[in-house]
Structure formats: C-alpha cells, structure tokens
C-alpha cells in the first residue's frame, strides 16, 4: 500500500443522483474541483448542473454509460481529473476499476483494489476474519460437490443457510431446515448464483433465526490507523433489503458497543484496510456477534452515522485517499443523539 501524500485537485464523480450531489458538496467544501459524468438520459440532472464540468459518457442504459469504464477513464483524461469517487452502486465495488484508475494515474477514492477484491469475496473475507480472531458463523468453504456439501452440513447442523460467494442483497441464498431439502436447495442456489453473479460458487453457514443485524462503520487511513464510528442497527428488512437504519442500536450498551467496534477495528487493522467500510454482524439472542460480510464502500445510510458522530465521512474519504492521516483517534470520537433513516419502497401490491 502506498503511504504519503498523493494529493489531487479535481475529482471525477462516477455516479449520479443523491450520492453524486453528496460527493459534490464534500468536494466543494474542501476546495476540490468536480467533474460530473452523465448518460444522455440525465443531461438535465442536478449533478450535471452543479459540477464544475460535465461530460456525457454514453447513451441511457447504465451498462453503456455509468458502467462504461473506458468512457469514464477517458472523461477523466480529457478534463484533467486526477481522482475518481465511485459513490455507491455501479462501479463502487469493482476492484478491476479501482486498479485501472490507479494504473491510469487517477487516485481512487476508496480502499485499494487488492483489499476490495479480498473483502468482496465472501469466502476469502471470512478466512481473513478468522485469522484476525473475529468470530464468524460456523460454516464451510466453497462446496463444489454433493459429498462436500453433505459433509459440511453434517458438521454445521440445521437449520443452515446456503450463500453465493459473489452474492449480496439476498440473491443466491437458501435456508435449509433439514437434510431432505439440502441437495435441491444447493443446486438451485448454484444456478441462481451463476445467473445473478456469473459465478456458481456457494458455501453454507449456520442459520440464526431472529437475529439482529448490526453493522459497524469503519474508516482507515494509509498509515495503518483505523477507527470505528459506532454501529447502525438494520434488523428491519424486507426481502433482504434494509428498511430502517438506526444509530445507536437499542440492544447494544456502551460495553458491547466498545467490544464490537474494537473487533471491527482489529479486523481492519489486520488486513490493512483504508478508507470507508462497513462490517456487518449477526447478533444472536444470547448477544454473541458473528462477522457476516464487509462492504468496501460508502453506504446509502452513511448519513445516519454522520449525524451521531459529527464526522463528515465523504470529506474523510477524500482526505485519507490523498494520503492524509485520520483527523481523530478513537477516544476523541463521541456518539451523541439518535438518528434513523427509512427506505421508502414503491410497490405494486
């Protein structure tokens, strides 16, 4: 990992909508110039109007515009942008894009590409957590054959959950309550994983019924320092999508918060994590927490943490990407008040 200053003055924002505006605001507050990119469908969008410069990168479909890596890199080249913020969604967790930015001399505002690749692979991330001493749910590695599957299921017991290595958002997940349903669920999960993520690899884990879903926000710099910004409680979900994000959680007391936050910091320090990230934990009814997965990016709900911590996370992302040290030590961070964010879904009943 590179240490030291890699300052930049013009940030290309490879996204649109609310998050593009959020990043624009942080750049403006730090005196950084901005380049918006947009598809032909978004020529009138706010982020195009508010940015210092804007470049049309393609036709309306996202795969030809916001996911069009050569067009985005070219837009940085022709505008003289020297950094890229991916926002969330689109290319935010694409390690190849992060690596390509660096090869093209653009500072990628996020964790380094190898870390993104490591933590984006659920099996490798889990192995890294085990090495760092972080509790994980009893589970298996990649299961390629029925024999491996049966052996792993026998060790872990029921109920268990089958998950896609490359998955997220609930896709490719199957809960299995007894042995009779095991093989069918496994082959369906593999098919879904192949269709959804282009990778059929799945693994199994113990399934916790009625868990709390608690995630810890972390921020690291390129000098080996990591802090946590407390937790977000996101147990209320629908179809594996979070509906309510709340900080602090009603079930964690100060000691439990310190313990879980400390675990997250220890895990990130062990892998050398830099920039913003979130470690998701499952908490069972006894209060035991298990690492589930890590999001190597800013999240939609980062503002909940900003409200209770007083930390501007996007500004912090920009600062650490430029090689600056974190502006605070753990003991200087205090959480005050209570913040809740709700997702509003429009559904056809």
């Amino acid at each position, binding site marked *: 990992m590179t240490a030291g200053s890699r300052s930049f003055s013009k940030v290309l924002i490879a996204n649109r909508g609310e998050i593009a505006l959020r990043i624009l605001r942080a750049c403006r507050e730090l005196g950084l110039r901005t380049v918006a990119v947009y598809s032909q469908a978004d020529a009138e969008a706010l982020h195009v109007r508010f940015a210092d410069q804007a470049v049309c990168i393609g036709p309306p479909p996202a795969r030809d*515009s916001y996911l069009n890596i050569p067009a985005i890199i*070219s837009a940085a080249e*022709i505008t003289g942008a020297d950094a890229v913020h991916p926002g969330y969604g689109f290319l935010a967790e694409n390690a190849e894009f992060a690596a390509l930015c660096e090869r093209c001399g653009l500072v990628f505002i996020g964790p380094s590409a190898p870390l993104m690749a490591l933590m984006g692979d659920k099996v490798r991330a889990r192995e890294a957590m085990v090495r760092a001493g972080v509790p994980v749910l009893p589970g298996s590695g990649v299961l390629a054959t029925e024999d491996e599957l049966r052996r792993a299921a026998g060790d872990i017991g029921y109920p268990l959950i089958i998950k896609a290595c490359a998955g997220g958002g609930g896709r490719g997940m199957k809960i299995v309550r007894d042995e009779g349903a095991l093989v069918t669920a496994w082959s369906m999960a593999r098919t879904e994983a192949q269709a959804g993520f282009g990778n059929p690899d799945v693994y199994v884990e113990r399934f916790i019924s009625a868990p709390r879903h608690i995630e810890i926000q972390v921020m690291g710099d390129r000098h080996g320092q990591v802090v946590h910004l407390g937790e977000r409680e996101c147990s209320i979900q629908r179809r594996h999508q979070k509906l309510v994000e709340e900080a602090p959680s009603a079930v964690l007391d100060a000691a439990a918060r310190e313990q879980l936050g400390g675990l997250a910091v220890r895990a990130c320090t062990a892998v050398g994590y830099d920039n913003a990230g979130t470690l998701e934990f499952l908490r069972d009814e006894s209060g035991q927490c298990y690492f589930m997965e890590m999001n190597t990016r800013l999240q939609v709900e980062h503002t909940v943490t900003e409200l209770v911590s007083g930390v501007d996370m996007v500004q912090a992302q920009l600062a650490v990407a430029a090689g600056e040290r974190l502006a605070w030590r753990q003991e200087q961070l205090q959480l005050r008040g209570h913040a809740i964010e709700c997702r509003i879904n429009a559904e056809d009943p």
Partner: protein
Amino acid sequence: MAALAALAGAKSITSPFVGTFYRAASPDGPPFVEVGQTVRKGQTLCIIEAMKLMNEIEAELDVKILEVLVKSGEPVEFGQALFRVEGA
C-alpha cells in the same frame, strides 16, 4: 480499431466515444477530410483518442462535409456533433 459514426438526423455526425478529436493521423499530416469534400461510406473522417487508443471514425453513408465543428486536439463527449453534413 474502426468505429462507425452515427448520423444524427442526417444533419451531423456525432462522436461515438468520449475522447480527444483529431482531424489528421499525425500533428503535421493532412486532414482526413476538408469542408466541401464528399466522402464515401467507410472512409475515415477523424480520430478519437480514448485511453491512448486511436479510434478511426468512419462515415456510415456517402455525405458531403459542410462544416467541421470541433478543432483538432479538442476533447469531445459522447454524442457531441463533429461534422455538419448533407447527403451526397
């Protein structure tokens, strides 16, 4: 790598890429096309440089060049008009 330029409304030829526009193959070379010239389908009109790759942009139809809308060496975005043309 060759690419076909789109003919938007039979009035202008637009850029299929984000990149840098060049009228000639080298800084001192002759332009691929001049105003008033009639070009044939498949003939190179200009180059758009993107990520160090020189992409030759070809005419999709036989057309007469009425105006060159971008100076050589200037950046262009996706869909930006490069040439004003009329059918030949």
